[in-house]
Protein backbone atom coordinates (compact mmCIF):
# COMPACT_ATOMS: atom_id res chain seq x y z
CA UNK A 1 0.00 0.00 0.00
CA UNK A 2 3.05 2.28 -0.01
CA UNK A 3 2.30 5.60 1.68
CA UNK A 4 -1.34 4.64 2.08
CA UNK A 5 -2.25 3.57 5.61
CA UNK A 6 -5.54 2.16 6.90
CA UNK A 7 -5.79 5.26 9.08
CA UNK A 8 -5.69 7.44 5.99
CA UNK A 9 -8.33 5.32 4.29
CA UNK A 10 -10.55 5.62 7.34
CA UNK A 11 -10.21 9.38 7.26
CA UNK A 12 -10.96 9.50 3.53
CA UNK A 13 -13.98 7.28 4.05
CA UNK A 14 -15.25 9.64 6.74
CA UNK A 15 -14.62 12.81 4.68
CA UNK A 16 -15.94 11.50 1.36
CA UNK A 17 -14.55 10.96 -2.12
CA UNK A 18 -13.27 14.51 -2.59
CA UNK A 19 -10.83 14.16 0.28
CA UNK A 20 -9.82 10.75 -0.97
CA UNK A 21 -9.15 12.28 -4.38
CA UNK A 22 -7.32 15.41 -3.21
CA UNK A 23 -5.10 13.54 -0.79
CA UNK A 24 -4.41 10.69 -3.22
CA UNK A 25 -3.31 13.32 -5.74
CA UNK A 26 -0.65 14.48 -3.27
CA UNK A 27 0.66 10.92 -3.08
CA UNK A 28 0.52 10.60 -6.86
CA UNK A 29 2.30 13.93 -7.24
CA UNK A 30 5.07 12.68 -4.97
CA UNK A 31 5.31 9.46 -6.94
CA UNK A 32 5.31 11.08 -10.40
CA UNK A 33 6.89 14.48 -10.96
CA UNK A 34 5.20 14.82 -14.34
CA UNK A 35 1.72 14.99 -12.79
CA UNK A 36 0.06 18.43 -12.97
CA UNK A 37 -3.38 19.54 -11.85
CA UNK A 38 -5.63 22.01 -13.66
CA UNK A 39 -8.77 23.28 -11.93
CA UNK A 40 -11.64 25.59 -12.85
CA UNK A 41 -12.02 27.51 -9.59
CA UNK A 42 -12.37 24.09 -7.99
CA UNK A 43 -9.15 23.78 -5.99
CA UNK A 44 -10.77 23.82 -2.53
CA UNK A 45 -13.91 22.02 -3.73
CA UNK A 46 -11.81 19.13 -5.01
CA UNK A 47 -9.77 19.18 -1.77
CA UNK A 48 -6.64 20.08 -3.72
CA UNK A 49 -5.45 22.78 -1.34
CA UNK A 50 -2.90 20.39 0.09
CA UNK A 51 -1.70 19.52 -3.41
CA UNK A 52 -1.28 23.24 -4.15
CA UNK A 53 0.64 23.72 -0.91
CA UNK A 54 2.87 20.74 -1.63
CA UNK A 55 3.38 21.52 -5.35
CA UNK A 56 2.73 25.25 -5.83
CA UNK A 57 4.18 25.13 -9.36
CA UNK A 58 2.14 22.15 -10.47
CA UNK A 59 -1.42 23.38 -10.10
CA UNK A 60 -3.08 25.84 -12.49
CA UNK A 61 -6.49 27.37 -11.96
CA UNK A 62 -8.00 28.57 -15.24
CA UNK A 63 -10.98 30.21 -13.54
CA UNK A 64 -14.59 29.28 -14.16
CA UNK A 65 -13.95 28.18 -17.72
CA UNK A 66 -14.46 24.49 -18.41
CA UNK A 67 -13.75 24.56 -22.14
CA UNK A 68 -10.38 26.11 -21.44
CA UNK A 69 -9.86 23.71 -18.54
CA UNK A 70 -9.73 20.95 -21.12
CA UNK A 71 -7.86 22.73 -23.93
CA UNK A 72 -5.25 24.23 -21.62
CA UNK A 73 -4.71 20.72 -20.26
CA UNK A 74 -4.54 19.40 -23.82
CA UNK A 75 -1.79 21.92 -24.59
CA UNK A 76 0.20 20.78 -21.56
CA UNK A 77 -0.27 17.15 -22.55
CA UNK A 78 0.74 17.92 -26.13
CA UNK A 79 4.12 18.97 -24.76
CA UNK A 80 4.61 15.88 -22.62
CA UNK A 81 3.25 16.91 -19.22
CA UNK A 82 0.49 14.83 -17.60
CA UNK A 83 -2.39 17.06 -16.55
CA UNK A 84 -5.36 16.04 -14.41
CA UNK A 85 -8.20 18.43 -15.27
CA UNK A 86 -10.59 18.59 -12.35
CA UNK A 87 -14.07 19.99 -11.87
CA UNK A 88 -17.57 18.89 -10.94
CA UNK A 89 -18.83 15.96 -13.01
CA UNK A 90 -21.89 18.13 -13.64
CA UNK A 91 -19.66 20.31 -15.85
CA UNK A 92 -17.00 17.95 -17.18
CA UNK A 93 -17.56 16.11 -19.43
CA UNK A 94 -20.93 17.65 -20.36
CA UNK A 95 -19.90 21.31 -20.65
CA UNK A 96 -16.59 20.57 -22.33
CA UNK A 97 -17.41 17.34 -24.14
CA UNK A 98 -16.43 18.90 -27.45
CA UNK A 99 -12.99 19.83 -26.15
CA UNK A 100 -12.56 16.36 -24.68
CA UNK A 101 -13.40 14.93 -28.10
CA UNK A 102 -11.61 17.34 -30.46
CA UNK A 103 -8.51 18.05 -28.39
CA UNK A 104 -7.79 15.23 -25.96
CA UNK A 105 -9.54 12.33 -27.67
CA UNK A 106 -8.77 13.09 -31.30
CA UNK A 107 -5.07 13.66 -30.62
CA UNK A 108 -5.04 10.76 -28.12
CA UNK A 109 -3.30 12.94 -25.54
CA UNK A 110 -2.08 11.75 -22.18
CA UNK A 111 -4.52 13.92 -20.23
CA UNK A 112 -6.93 12.88 -17.49
CA UNK A 113 -10.28 14.43 -16.72
CA UNK A 114 -11.70 14.00 -13.23
CA UNK A 115 -15.38 14.59 -12.47
CA UNK A 116 -16.05 14.99 -8.77
CA UNK A 117 -19.50 14.63 -7.16
CA UNK A 118 -20.90 12.54 -9.97
CA UNK A 119 -24.47 11.34 -9.59
CA UNK A 120 -27.00 13.05 -7.33
CA UNK A 121 -25.09 13.57 -4.08
CA UNK A 122 -25.68 17.33 -4.43
CA UNK A 123 -29.39 16.54 -3.95
CA UNK A 124 -30.48 19.82 -2.36
CA UNK A 125 -28.57 21.95 -4.90
CA UNK A 126 -30.81 20.98 -7.78
CA UNK A 127 -30.42 19.33 -11.16
CA UNK A 128 -27.82 21.75 -12.60
CA UNK A 129 -25.38 20.22 -10.15
CA UNK A 130 -26.20 16.56 -10.75
CA UNK A 131 -24.10 14.47 -13.11
CA UNK A 132 -26.42 11.81 -14.45
CA UNK A 133 -24.99 11.82 -17.98
CA UNK A 134 -21.22 11.86 -17.59
CA UNK A 135 -20.68 8.18 -18.32
CA UNK A 136 -22.87 8.43 -21.42
CA UNK A 137 -20.87 11.37 -22.73
CA UNK A 138 -17.43 10.04 -21.84
CA UNK A 139 -18.15 6.56 -23.21
CA UNK A 140 -19.03 8.06 -26.58
CA UNK A 141 -15.62 9.70 -26.97
CA UNK A 142 -13.15 7.51 -28.92
CA UNK A 143 -9.78 6.85 -27.25
CA UNK A 144 -11.15 7.60 -23.78
CA UNK A 145 -10.86 5.08 -20.98
CA UNK A 146 -13.63 5.53 -18.41
CA UNK A 147 -13.14 4.66 -14.74
CA UNK A 148 -15.62 4.73 -11.88
CA UNK A 149 -14.00 3.62 -8.62
CA UNK A 150 -16.09 2.38 -5.73
CA UNK A 151 -14.32 3.19 -2.46
CA UNK A 152 -11.52 5.39 -1.07
CA UNK A 153 -8.88 2.76 -1.68
CA UNK A 154 -10.02 2.20 -5.24
CA UNK A 155 -10.00 5.95 -5.93
CA UNK A 156 -6.32 5.94 -4.98
CA UNK A 157 -5.65 2.88 -7.14
CA UNK A 158 -7.60 4.28 -10.08
CA UNK A 159 -5.63 7.54 -10.05
CA UNK A 160 -2.30 5.71 -10.05
CA UNK A 161 -3.52 3.36 -12.78
CA UNK A 162 -4.72 6.31 -14.88
CA UNK A 163 -1.27 7.88 -14.54
CA UNK A 164 0.31 4.63 -15.75
CA UNK A 165 -1.88 4.55 -18.84
CA UNK A 166 -0.57 6.68 -21.71
CA UNK A 167 -3.80 8.15 -23.06
CA UNK A 168 -7.06 9.95 -22.27
CA UNK A 169 -8.94 8.86 -19.15
CA UNK A 170 -12.15 10.11 -17.60
CA UNK A 171 -12.45 9.33 -13.89
CA UNK A 172 -15.91 9.56 -12.37
CA UNK A 173 -15.93 10.04 -8.62
CA UNK A 174 -18.77 9.20 -6.25
CA UNK A 175 -18.98 8.55 -2.53
CA UNK A 176 -20.57 10.73 0.15
CA UNK A 177 -18.88 11.37 3.49
CA UNK A 178 -19.04 8.04 5.31
CA UNK A 179 -18.83 5.92 2.18
CA UNK A 180 -17.44 2.61 3.34
CA UNK A 181 -14.03 1.11 2.74
CA UNK A 182 -14.75 -1.94 0.61
CA UNK A 183 -11.09 -2.82 0.11
CA UNK A 184 -9.32 -2.57 3.49
CA UNK A 185 -6.38 -4.66 2.30
CA UNK A 186 -4.09 -4.23 -0.67
CA UNK A 187 -5.67 -5.50 -3.87
CA UNK A 188 -4.95 -5.65 -7.55
CA UNK A 189 -6.53 -2.92 -9.68
CA UNK A 190 -6.25 -3.41 -13.42
CA UNK A 191 -7.97 -1.07 -15.87
CA UNK A 192 -10.49 -3.09 -17.89
CA UNK A 193 -10.55 -5.96 -15.45
CA UNK A 194 -13.59 -6.00 -13.17
CA UNK A 195 -13.32 -7.37 -9.64
CA UNK A 196 -15.45 -10.31 -8.61
CA UNK A 197 -16.27 -9.04 -5.15
CA UNK A 198 -18.31 -12.05 -4.25
CA UNK A 199 -19.08 -15.27 -6.15
CA UNK A 200 -22.56 -16.68 -6.58
CA UNK A 201 -24.70 -18.61 -9.04
CA UNK A 202 -28.26 -17.26 -8.93
CA UNK A 203 -28.05 -13.58 -9.61
CA UNK A 204 -25.12 -11.38 -10.64
CA UNK A 205 -25.28 -7.82 -9.40
CA UNK A 206 -22.91 -5.66 -11.40
CA UNK A 207 -22.31 -2.28 -9.83
CA UNK A 208 -20.06 0.71 -10.44
CA UNK A 209 -18.99 3.55 -8.17
CA UNK A 210 -19.83 4.01 -4.52
CA UNK A 211 -23.25 2.35 -4.89
CA UNK A 212 -21.31 -0.91 -4.99
CA UNK A 213 -21.79 -0.74 -1.21
CA UNK A 214 -25.58 -0.88 -1.69
CA UNK A 215 -25.17 -3.82 -4.06
CA UNK A 216 -23.14 -5.68 -1.44
CA UNK A 217 -25.74 -4.86 1.22
CA UNK A 218 -28.48 -6.17 -1.05
CA UNK A 219 -26.47 -9.34 -1.61
CA UNK A 220 -26.26 -9.81 2.16
CA UNK A 221 -30.05 -9.54 2.46
CA UNK A 222 -30.58 -11.99 -0.38
CA UNK A 223 -28.08 -14.48 1.00
CA UNK A 224 -29.98 -14.48 4.28
CA UNK A 225 -32.88 -15.76 2.23
CA UNK A 226 -30.79 -18.54 0.76
CA UNK A 227 -29.93 -17.05 -2.62
CA UNK A 228 -26.48 -17.30 -4.11
CA UNK A 229 -25.46 -13.80 -5.18
CA UNK A 230 -22.50 -12.81 -7.28
CA UNK A 231 -21.30 -9.22 -6.91
CA UNK A 232 -19.11 -7.60 -9.53
CA UNK A 233 -17.31 -4.29 -9.14
CA UNK A 234 -17.24 -2.87 -12.68
CA UNK A 235 -14.80 -0.06 -11.97
CA UNK A 236 -13.91 0.30 -15.64
CA UNK A 237 -16.84 1.25 -17.84
CA UNK A 238 -14.67 1.43 -20.95
CA UNK A 239 -13.09 -0.80 -22.04
CA UNK A 240 -15.73 -3.13 -20.63
CA UNK A 241 -14.52 -6.41 -19.11
CA UNK A 242 -16.10 -8.78 -21.61
CA UNK A 243 -14.48 -11.89 -20.14
CA UNK A 244 -16.25 -11.50 -16.81
CA UNK A 245 -19.53 -10.75 -18.61
CA UNK A 246 -19.11 -13.93 -20.67
CA UNK A 247 -18.95 -15.92 -17.45
CA UNK A 248 -21.92 -14.03 -15.96
CA UNK A 249 -24.06 -14.69 -19.03
CA UNK A 250 -23.10 -18.38 -18.92
CA UNK A 251 -23.40 -18.97 -15.19
CA UNK A 252 -26.00 -16.64 -13.67
CA UNK A 253 -29.77 -16.69 -14.05
CA UNK A 254 -30.33 -12.96 -13.69
CA UNK A 255 -28.18 -9.87 -14.23
CA UNK A 256 -28.78 -6.64 -12.32
CA UNK A 257 -26.79 -3.52 -13.10
CA UNK A 258 -26.57 -0.86 -10.39
CA UNK A 259 -25.33 2.66 -11.01
CA UNK A 260 -25.89 6.23 -9.92
CA UNK A 261 -26.36 7.39 -13.52
CA UNK A 262 -29.04 7.93 -16.12
CA UNK A 263 -30.74 4.88 -17.62
CA UNK A 264 -29.16 5.91 -20.90
CA UNK A 265 -25.53 5.39 -21.76
CA UNK A 266 -24.01 4.19 -18.51
CA UNK A 267 -23.09 0.79 -17.08
CA UNK A 268 -26.50 -0.76 -17.78
CA UNK A 269 -26.35 0.31 -21.40
CA UNK A 270 -22.78 -0.90 -21.81
CA UNK A 271 -23.65 -4.35 -20.46
CA UNK A 272 -26.85 -4.52 -22.54
CA UNK A 273 -24.99 -3.51 -25.72
CA UNK A 274 -22.57 -6.38 -25.22
CA UNK A 275 -25.32 -8.81 -24.23
CA UNK A 276 -27.21 -8.03 -27.44
CA UNK A 277 -24.78 -10.26 -29.32
CA UNK A 278 -25.72 -13.36 -27.28
CA UNK A 279 -28.44 -15.72 -28.48
CA UNK A 280 -28.79 -17.14 -24.97
CA UNK A 281 -28.26 -14.83 -22.06
CA UNK A 282 -30.06 -14.09 -18.81
CA UNK A 283 -32.48 -11.19 -18.33
CA UNK A 284 -31.02 -7.89 -17.26
CA UNK A 285 -32.62 -5.50 -14.81
CA UNK A 286 -31.26 -1.99 -14.49
CA UNK A 287 -31.19 0.05 -11.33
CA UNK A 288 -30.29 3.65 -12.13
CA UNK A 289 -31.56 7.23 -12.08
CA UNK A 290 -34.02 6.69 -14.94
CA UNK A 291 -34.42 9.19 -17.73
CA UNK A 292 -35.68 12.24 -15.91
CA UNK A 293 -34.64 15.26 -13.91
CA UNK A 294 -34.68 14.46 -10.21
CA UNK A 295 -36.71 15.91 -7.39
CA UNK A 296 -34.76 18.06 -4.97
CA UNK A 297 -33.84 16.48 -1.69
CA UNK A 298 -31.16 14.86 0.45
CA UNK A 299 -28.85 12.24 -1.00
CA UNK A 300 -30.65 9.53 0.95
CA UNK A 301 -33.94 10.75 -0.52
CA UNK A 302 -32.49 10.64 -4.02
CA UNK A 303 -31.26 7.07 -3.59
CA UNK A 304 -34.60 5.97 -2.19
CA UNK A 305 -36.53 7.65 -5.00
CA UNK A 306 -34.46 5.71 -7.50
CA UNK A 307 -34.43 2.33 -5.78
CA UNK A 308 -30.69 2.59 -5.14
CA UNK A 309 -30.92 1.18 -1.62
CA UNK A 310 -30.11 -2.25 -0.22
CA UNK A 311 -33.71 -3.34 0.45
CA UNK A 312 -34.98 -1.97 -2.86
CA UNK A 313 -32.31 -3.79 -4.87
CA UNK A 314 -32.91 -6.99 -2.88
CA UNK A 315 -36.67 -6.74 -3.40
CA UNK A 316 -36.23 -6.25 -7.14
CA UNK A 317 -34.06 -9.36 -7.37
CA UNK A 318 -36.47 -11.47 -5.30
CA UNK A 319 -39.44 -10.42 -7.39
CA UNK A 320 -37.68 -11.32 -10.59
CA UNK A 321 -36.05 -14.56 -9.56
CA UNK A 322 -39.31 -16.17 -8.49
Amino acid at each position, binding site marked *: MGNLTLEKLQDWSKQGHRTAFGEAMVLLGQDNSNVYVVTADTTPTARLTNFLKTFPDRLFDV*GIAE*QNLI*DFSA*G*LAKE*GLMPFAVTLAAFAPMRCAEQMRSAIGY*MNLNAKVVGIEAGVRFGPLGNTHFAMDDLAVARALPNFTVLSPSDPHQIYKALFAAAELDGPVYIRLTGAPGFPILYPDDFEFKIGQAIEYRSGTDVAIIATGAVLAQAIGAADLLQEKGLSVRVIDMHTIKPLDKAILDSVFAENRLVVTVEEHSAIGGLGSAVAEYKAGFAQAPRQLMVNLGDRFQKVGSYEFQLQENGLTEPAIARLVEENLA
Partner: protein
Amino acid sequence: MNTRTSIEKIREKAAAMRRDSIEMGYVAGSHGAHFGPALSSIEIVASLYFGVMNHNPQDPCMRERDRFVMSKGHACLSYYAALVEAGYLSREQMYTFKGDNSILPGHPSCHVEFGLEVATGSLGNGFAIACGMAMAAKIKNETHNVYCVLGDGECDEGLIWEAAMNAVKNKLDNLIAIVDRNSFQLAGKTTEIMDLDLAKIWQAFGWEVVIVEDGNDVASLLDALQAMQQSGSGKPHLIIAQTVKGKGISFMENNLGWHAAPINREQYEQAQSDLELV
Protein backbone atom coordinates in the same frame (compact mmCIF):
# COMPACT_ATOMS: atom_id res chain seq x y z
CA MET B 1 17.51 41.99 -41.04
CA ASN B 2 14.69 41.86 -43.56
CA THR B 3 16.79 42.25 -46.64
CA ARG B 4 15.10 42.72 -49.93
CA THR B 5 16.28 39.21 -50.84
CA SER B 6 14.68 37.53 -47.83
CA ILE B 7 11.41 39.38 -48.38
CA GLU B 8 11.49 38.46 -52.05
CA LYS B 9 12.09 34.81 -51.15
CA ILE B 10 9.05 34.76 -48.88
CA ARG B 11 6.95 36.41 -51.57
CA GLU B 12 7.98 33.67 -53.98
CA LYS B 13 7.03 31.05 -51.42
CA ALA B 14 3.69 32.77 -50.90
CA ALA B 15 3.06 32.73 -54.64
CA ALA B 16 3.89 29.02 -54.77
CA MET B 17 1.61 28.39 -51.78
CA ARG B 18 -1.24 30.13 -53.58
CA ARG B 19 -0.72 27.89 -56.60
CA ASP B 20 -0.59 24.82 -54.34
CA SER B 21 -3.80 25.90 -52.62
CA ILE B 22 -5.63 26.17 -55.93
CA GLU B 23 -4.22 22.80 -57.01
CA MET B 24 -5.42 21.11 -53.82
CA GLY B 25 -8.81 22.79 -54.03
CA TYR B 26 -9.14 21.61 -57.62
CA VAL B 27 -8.29 17.96 -56.86
CA ALA B 28 -10.91 18.04 -54.10
CA GLY B 29 -13.45 18.27 -56.92
CA SER B 30 -17.03 18.47 -55.79
CA HIS B 31 -15.93 18.40 -52.13
CA GLY B 32 -14.74 21.96 -52.69
CA ALA B 33 -12.40 23.82 -50.38
CA HIS B 34 -12.25 26.85 -48.11
CA PHE B 35 -10.45 29.02 -50.65
CA GLY B 36 -11.32 32.47 -49.28
CA PRO B 37 -10.07 32.07 -45.70
CA ALA B 38 -6.95 30.19 -46.86
CA LEU B 39 -5.92 32.73 -49.46
CA SER B 40 -6.23 35.63 -47.01
CA SER B 41 -3.80 33.90 -44.66
CA ILE B 42 -1.09 32.94 -47.20
CA GLU B 43 1.36 35.76 -46.41
CA ILE B 44 0.90 35.28 -42.66
CA VAL B 45 1.74 31.58 -42.86
CA ALA B 46 4.54 32.15 -45.39
CA SER B 47 6.14 34.83 -43.21
CA LEU B 48 6.09 32.44 -40.25
CA TYR B 49 7.45 29.38 -42.04
CA PHE B 50 9.98 31.10 -44.29
CA GLY B 51 10.88 34.21 -42.32
CA VAL B 52 10.38 33.81 -38.60
CA MET B 53 10.00 30.32 -37.21
CA ASN B 54 12.82 28.07 -36.11
CA HIS B 55 11.98 24.68 -37.59
CA ASN B 56 13.54 21.84 -39.52
CA PRO B 57 11.65 19.75 -42.09
CA GLN B 58 14.40 17.10 -41.76
CA ASP B 59 13.59 16.81 -38.06
CA PRO B 60 9.89 17.67 -37.68
CA CYS B 61 9.77 16.65 -34.01
CA MET B 62 12.85 18.70 -33.06
CA ARG B 63 12.31 19.60 -29.41
CA GLU B 64 13.30 23.26 -29.76
CA ARG B 65 11.17 23.92 -32.84
CA ASP B 66 8.79 26.84 -32.75
CA ARG B 67 5.23 25.51 -32.64
CA PHE B 68 2.62 26.48 -35.20
CA VAL B 69 -1.09 26.08 -34.59
CA MET B 70 -3.59 26.81 -37.35
CA SER B 71 -6.54 27.52 -35.12
CA LYS B 72 -8.73 28.54 -38.05
CA GLY B 73 -8.41 24.97 -39.27
CA HIS B 74 -10.72 25.45 -42.24
CA ALA B 75 -7.93 27.56 -43.77
CA CYS B 76 -5.77 24.42 -43.92
CA LEU B 77 -4.88 24.95 -47.59
CA SER B 78 -2.36 27.66 -46.70
CA TYR B 79 -0.98 25.48 -43.89
CA TYR B 80 -0.64 22.39 -46.09
CA ALA B 81 0.87 24.51 -48.85
CA ALA B 82 3.52 25.86 -46.46
CA LEU B 83 4.33 22.30 -45.37
CA VAL B 84 4.67 21.27 -49.01
CA GLU B 85 6.91 24.21 -49.88
CA ALA B 86 9.01 23.66 -46.74
CA GLY B 87 9.39 19.95 -47.50
CA TYR B 88 7.32 18.33 -44.74
CA LEU B 89 4.79 17.00 -47.21
CA SER B 90 5.49 15.57 -50.62
CA ARG B 91 3.69 16.74 -53.71
CA GLU B 92 2.08 13.29 -53.92
CA GLN B 93 0.70 13.76 -50.43
CA MET B 94 -0.51 17.21 -51.39
CA TYR B 95 -2.64 15.75 -54.16
CA THR B 96 -4.42 13.47 -51.66
CA PHE B 97 -6.17 16.51 -50.13
CA LYS B 98 -9.62 15.44 -48.89
CA GLY B 99 -9.12 12.04 -50.55
CA ASP B 100 -9.89 8.61 -49.11
CA ASN B 101 -7.61 7.80 -46.18
CA SER B 102 -5.61 11.01 -46.68
CA ILE B 103 -3.77 12.64 -43.79
CA LEU B 104 -4.95 15.97 -45.23
CA PRO B 105 -8.64 16.40 -44.46
CA GLY B 106 -10.50 19.67 -44.76
CA HIS B 107 -9.48 20.48 -41.20
CA PRO B 108 -6.00 19.49 -39.99
CA SER B 109 -5.39 16.29 -38.06
CA CYS B 110 -2.38 15.74 -35.81
CA HIS B 111 0.70 14.18 -37.46
CA VAL B 112 3.74 15.91 -36.02
CA GLU B 113 6.03 13.81 -38.22
CA PHE B 114 4.58 15.70 -41.19
CA GLY B 115 4.61 19.08 -39.46
CA LEU B 116 0.92 18.80 -38.58
CA GLU B 117 1.24 20.00 -35.00
CA VAL B 118 -2.33 20.19 -33.68
CA ALA B 119 -5.71 18.92 -34.88
CA THR B 120 -7.94 21.94 -35.37
CA GLY B 121 -11.11 22.95 -37.14
CA SER B 122 -13.52 23.23 -34.27
CA LEU B 123 -13.04 26.95 -33.78
CA GLY B 124 -11.49 28.29 -30.61
CA ASN B 125 -9.81 25.04 -29.64
CA GLY B 126 -6.52 25.51 -31.50
CA PHE B 127 -5.89 28.84 -29.84
CA ALA B 128 -6.70 27.49 -26.36
CA ILE B 129 -4.44 24.47 -26.93
CA ALA B 130 -1.69 26.80 -28.16
CA CYS B 131 -1.94 28.68 -24.85
CA GLY B 132 -1.44 25.39 -22.99
CA MET B 133 1.55 24.58 -25.19
CA ALA B 134 3.09 27.98 -24.42
CA MET B 135 2.53 27.32 -20.72
CA ALA B 136 4.26 23.95 -21.04
CA ALA B 137 7.28 25.65 -22.63
CA LYS B 138 7.45 28.03 -19.66
CA ILE B 139 7.19 25.16 -17.19
CA LYS B 140 9.96 23.28 -18.95
CA ASN B 141 12.16 26.36 -19.40
CA GLU B 142 12.14 25.90 -23.15
CA THR B 143 12.79 28.99 -25.23
CA HIS B 144 10.77 28.28 -28.36
CA ASN B 145 7.74 30.37 -29.29
CA VAL B 146 4.21 29.26 -30.09
CA TYR B 147 2.60 30.89 -33.13
CA CYS B 148 -1.10 30.64 -33.67
CA VAL B 149 -3.23 31.88 -36.57
CA LEU B 150 -6.86 32.50 -35.78
CA GLY B 151 -9.80 33.87 -37.70
CA ASP B 152 -11.61 37.10 -36.99
CA GLY B 153 -14.93 35.24 -37.03
CA GLU B 154 -13.35 32.70 -34.69
CA CYS B 155 -13.11 35.45 -32.08
CA ASP B 156 -16.89 35.06 -31.59
CA GLU B 157 -16.12 31.87 -29.66
CA GLY B 158 -16.33 32.20 -25.86
CA LEU B 159 -13.42 29.80 -25.53
CA ILE B 160 -11.10 32.34 -27.19
CA TRP B 161 -11.67 34.70 -24.29
CA GLU B 162 -11.44 32.00 -21.63
CA ALA B 163 -8.01 31.21 -23.01
CA ALA B 164 -7.02 34.84 -23.64
CA MET B 165 -7.42 35.83 -19.99
CA ASN B 166 -5.62 32.74 -18.79
CA ALA B 167 -2.69 33.52 -21.14
CA VAL B 168 -2.32 36.98 -19.59
CA LYS B 169 -2.56 35.58 -16.08
CA ASN B 170 0.31 33.22 -16.88
CA LYS B 171 2.38 35.89 -18.71
CA LEU B 172 2.68 33.81 -21.87
CA ASP B 173 4.93 36.21 -23.76
CA ASN B 174 6.21 33.24 -25.77
CA LEU B 175 2.85 33.16 -27.53
CA ILE B 176 2.29 35.18 -30.69
CA ALA B 177 -1.21 34.98 -32.11
CA ILE B 178 -2.13 36.45 -35.48
CA VAL B 179 -5.74 37.21 -36.32
CA ASP B 180 -6.38 36.88 -40.05
CA ARG B 181 -8.71 39.88 -40.18
CA ASN B 182 -10.33 39.30 -43.58
CA SER B 183 -13.60 40.80 -42.32
CA PHE B 184 -15.79 37.92 -43.48
CA GLN B 185 -17.13 34.84 -41.77
CA LEU B 186 -19.26 32.00 -43.10
CA ALA B 187 -22.62 33.76 -43.27
CA GLY B 188 -21.61 37.33 -43.96
CA LYS B 189 -19.36 40.28 -43.16
CA THR B 190 -18.02 40.24 -39.61
CA THR B 191 -19.56 43.69 -39.16
CA GLU B 192 -22.97 42.15 -39.86
CA ILE B 193 -22.65 38.86 -37.97
CA MET B 194 -20.80 40.03 -34.85
CA ASP B 195 -19.16 43.40 -34.99
CA LEU B 196 -16.15 43.30 -32.66
CA ASP B 197 -13.55 45.99 -32.08
CA LEU B 198 -10.87 43.35 -31.89
CA ALA B 199 -7.93 45.63 -31.02
CA LYS B 200 -9.81 47.20 -28.14
CA ILE B 201 -11.07 43.89 -26.78
CA TRP B 202 -7.73 42.09 -26.95
CA GLN B 203 -6.04 45.08 -25.32
CA ALA B 204 -8.68 45.13 -22.61
CA PHE B 205 -7.93 41.47 -21.94
CA GLY B 206 -4.29 42.47 -21.37
CA TRP B 207 -2.66 41.45 -24.63
CA GLU B 208 -0.03 43.47 -26.47
CA VAL B 209 -1.70 44.32 -29.75
CA VAL B 210 -0.28 45.45 -33.08
CA ILE B 211 -2.32 46.13 -36.20
CA VAL B 212 -0.85 45.38 -39.60
CA GLU B 213 -2.70 47.56 -42.08
CA ASP B 214 -1.84 45.32 -45.03
CA GLY B 215 -1.79 41.78 -43.74
CA ASN B 216 -0.99 40.45 -47.20
CA ASP B 217 2.27 42.40 -47.29
CA VAL B 218 5.21 40.27 -46.23
CA ALA B 219 7.47 43.16 -45.18
CA SER B 220 4.82 44.62 -42.86
CA LEU B 221 4.11 41.23 -41.34
CA LEU B 222 7.80 40.55 -40.71
CA ASP B 223 8.18 43.93 -39.01
CA ALA B 224 5.23 43.20 -36.71
CA LEU B 225 6.36 39.64 -35.95
CA GLN B 226 9.89 40.74 -35.13
CA ALA B 227 8.63 43.60 -32.98
CA MET B 228 6.56 41.10 -31.00
CA GLN B 229 9.49 38.72 -30.64
CA GLN B 230 11.61 41.49 -29.18
CA SER B 231 8.96 43.38 -27.22
CA GLY B 232 9.87 42.26 -23.68
CA SER B 233 6.45 43.39 -22.45
CA GLY B 234 5.83 40.15 -20.58
CA LYS B 235 2.42 39.98 -22.22
CA PRO B 236 1.11 37.56 -24.83
CA HIS B 237 1.16 39.12 -28.29
CA LEU B 238 -1.57 39.64 -30.81
CA ILE B 239 -1.17 40.83 -34.37
CA ILE B 240 -4.30 41.88 -36.19
CA ALA B 241 -3.43 41.39 -39.85
CA GLN B 242 -5.95 43.13 -42.06
CA THR B 243 -6.19 40.90 -45.08
CA VAL B 244 -8.28 40.38 -48.17
CA LYS B 245 -10.50 37.30 -48.23
CA GLY B 246 -9.71 35.25 -51.33
CA LYS B 247 -6.56 37.35 -51.93
CA GLY B 248 -4.89 36.86 -55.30
CA ILE B 249 -7.74 35.29 -57.27
CA SER B 250 -9.76 37.94 -59.06
CA PHE B 251 -13.18 36.34 -58.73
CA MET B 252 -12.64 35.18 -55.15
CA GLU B 253 -11.47 38.44 -53.56
CA ASN B 254 -13.95 39.76 -51.00
CA ASN B 255 -16.52 37.35 -52.40
CA LEU B 256 -18.35 35.47 -49.65
CA GLY B 257 -19.43 32.83 -52.16
CA TRP B 258 -15.84 31.59 -52.08
CA HIS B 259 -15.68 31.05 -48.32
CA ALA B 260 -16.05 27.38 -49.20
CA ALA B 261 -16.98 26.08 -52.64
CA PRO B 262 -15.92 23.68 -55.38
CA ILE B 263 -13.94 25.14 -58.27
CA ASN B 264 -14.68 24.09 -61.85
CA ARG B 265 -12.29 23.72 -64.79
CA GLU B 266 -12.94 27.18 -66.16
CA GLN B 267 -12.52 28.85 -62.78
CA TYR B 268 -9.39 26.82 -62.13
CA GLU B 269 -7.86 28.04 -65.38
CA GLN B 270 -8.85 31.60 -64.56
CA ALA B 271 -7.21 31.25 -61.14
CA GLN B 272 -4.05 29.92 -62.73
CA SER B 273 -3.90 32.82 -65.12
CA ASP B 274 -4.51 35.29 -62.25
CA LEU B 275 -1.57 33.79 -60.42
CA GLU B 276 0.73 34.04 -63.42
CA LEU B 277 0.25 37.81 -63.37
CA VAL B 278 1.59 38.10 -59.82
